[in-house]
């Protein structure tokens, strides 16, 4: 039994306190009432861990050189300033790309910590430490470049459409396989060059793995990268034998993994399918879509239907987020509520550009969160809903998910808007959604198609409601 020194006991207890604050903080994030406090508790946990680490390093005389102090202080100031600038400046609609970028920085930091171990030790790392070092480097590096590509796609720097890489998924498999071989070689031979080789391959893999993934799949990608940033931190924790990193990293790894699974269920696809293949839906021909008759609606038609309804359910989709129409929809809801109409919102899990994004956008527009219903809450309500207003959504309201076994979205949980008396669909055109399949809902008797940009449609409808 090795006796710990007093300082070692203190630092262990400080990390325990930080871990508890993280857990209590995450628990707080499970309810809108306690979420803000929870986030702050987690932040306090982080502060405790940082201060304890610095105090410990000083106490054991590991942190004494001016250079080391200068590096740490400069890093904290520079990183903190960049982080604060990005966080305070971001528009809510751009939240997905910011979270993607932060994931990347987190993963990159963990890979750098592991790099410092590789650079700093000449001695042979024990096998298990070699393994966690390689994992931290690889996962961290994939997270870094994968997040940067996700950021570029979401920010519109490169097209959101899937970009085919030469060789397709096989190329990724080859890179991943090579990376694994080089990493094993690194662990066995303790060769820094091999560690760097594996890291370089991981950096490439992050790019080639995310490039072929389409914009609409980004909710899953961001969740997965979030999980990876946690795992990379936990692996770095094993390498430097630090419990705080292991606890924090494991919590985030688990949280991200749950969200990833949630998202892939909501999109009716396995994670492997999202990551390793372009979407293989049967695309309806334009001809077929163009010829069927639909009932068209104008802003006046929509205004009349909505104003004389008792219960209205708004179904916001990707199109609303893109058009930044969250304030316009709130304006319409306010106008309708003045007339005694009850307005609620049914939000599909993958409605925005990341999990829960739509809720944030609507919260930004001052929509109270208890009006935002999830899939399970809203589906039983459509039967008693007079008018459903669908804004820029398609696949998530497609009834073939229930009826057509051959459809690529068969079995996907969808909002059953066809149960409502009237459905008004605001959409730019009849073009099929992301899955590339036609939507029979559009041709049903109770459905009116309002062809317009989401924001303009809502603004025109508000005007029409006020003129009634």
């Amino acid at each position, binding site marked *: 039994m090795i006796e710990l020194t007093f300082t070692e006991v203190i630092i262990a207890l400080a990390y325990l306190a930080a871990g508890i604050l993280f857990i209590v903080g995450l628990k707080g994030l499970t309810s809108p009432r306690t979420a803000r406090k929870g986030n702050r508790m987690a932040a306090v946990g982080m502060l405790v861990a940082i201060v304890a680490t610095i105090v410990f390093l000083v106490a054991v005389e590991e942190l004494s050189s001016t250079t080391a102090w200068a590096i740490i202080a400069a890093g904290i100031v520079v990183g903190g300033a960049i*982080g604060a600038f990005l966080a305070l400046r971001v528009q809510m609609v751009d939240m997905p790309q910011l979270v993607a970028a932060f994931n990347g920085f*987190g993963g990159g930091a963990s890979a750098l910590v592991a790099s410092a171990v590789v650079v700093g030790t000449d001695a042979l790392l024990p096998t298990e430490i070699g393994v966690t070092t390689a994992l931290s480097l690889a996962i961290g590096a994939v997270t870094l470049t994968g997040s940067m590509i996700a950021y570029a796609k979401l920010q519109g720097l490169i097209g959101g459409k899937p970009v085919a890489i030469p060789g397709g998924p096989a190329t990724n498999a080859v890179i991943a396989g090579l990376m694994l071989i080089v990493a094993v070689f690194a662990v066995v031979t303790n060769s820094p060059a091999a560690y760097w080789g594996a890291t370089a391959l991981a950096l490439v893999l992050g790019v080639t793995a995310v490039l072929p993934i389409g914009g609409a799949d980004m909710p899953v990608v961001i969740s997965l990268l979030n999980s990876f940033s946690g795992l990379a*931190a936990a692996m770095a924790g094993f390498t430097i034998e630090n419990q705080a990193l292991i606890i924090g*990293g494991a919590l985030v790894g688990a949280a991200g993994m749950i969200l990833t699974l949630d998202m892939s269920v909501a999109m009716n696809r396995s994670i492997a399918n999202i990551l390793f293949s372009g979407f293989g839906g049967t695309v309806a021909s334009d001809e077929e879509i163009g010829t069927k008759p639909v009932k068209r609606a104008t802003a006046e038609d929509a205004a009349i239907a909505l104003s004389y309804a008792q219960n209205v359910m708004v179904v916001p989709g990707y199109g609303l987020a893109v058009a930044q129409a969250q304030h316009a929809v709130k304006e319409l809801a306010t106008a309708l509520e003045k007339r005694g109409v009850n307005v609620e919102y049914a939000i599909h899990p993958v409605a925005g550009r990341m999990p*829960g994004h739509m809720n944030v956008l609507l919260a930004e527009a001052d929509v109270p969160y208890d009006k935002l219903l999830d899939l399970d809450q809203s589906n039983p309500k459509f039967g008693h809903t007079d008018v459903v207003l669908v804004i820029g959504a398609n696949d998530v309201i497609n009834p073939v998910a229930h009826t057509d076994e051959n459809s690529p979205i068969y079995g996907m949980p969808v909002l059953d808007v066809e149960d409502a008396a009237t459905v008004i669909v605001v959409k730019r055109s009849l073009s099929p959604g992301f899955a590339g399949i036609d939507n029979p809902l559009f041709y049903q008797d109770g459905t009116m198609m309002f062809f317009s940009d989401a924001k303009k449609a809502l603004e025109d409808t508000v005007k029409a409601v006020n003129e009634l």
Partner: protein
Amino acid sequence: MSQEFIQGVVVFVLASFVGFEIIRRVPPTLHTPLMSGANAISGITIVGAIIAAATGSGIAAGVLGFLAVVFAMINVIGGFLVTDRMLEMFKKVPGKSR
């Protein structure tokens, strides 16, 4: 295999379970703030970055340590701040709230 390592494995597995159990109950409404908040927590790697910067010797280790601290700090400060900004906007129906 060192005692520290196997203790680490125990902690890792237990913490993962706690993470799974807590997050399973997060309502979809909070998924985005949850993710950015969790993201900030993954910035715990700042602790490793500080240790690396303090204990590393030589220019390469110094540069790696500095970059690690910068990256992790962006993650920590940015993540917690932006989560707070988002959560500030979540409000109940007026009158229904107490």
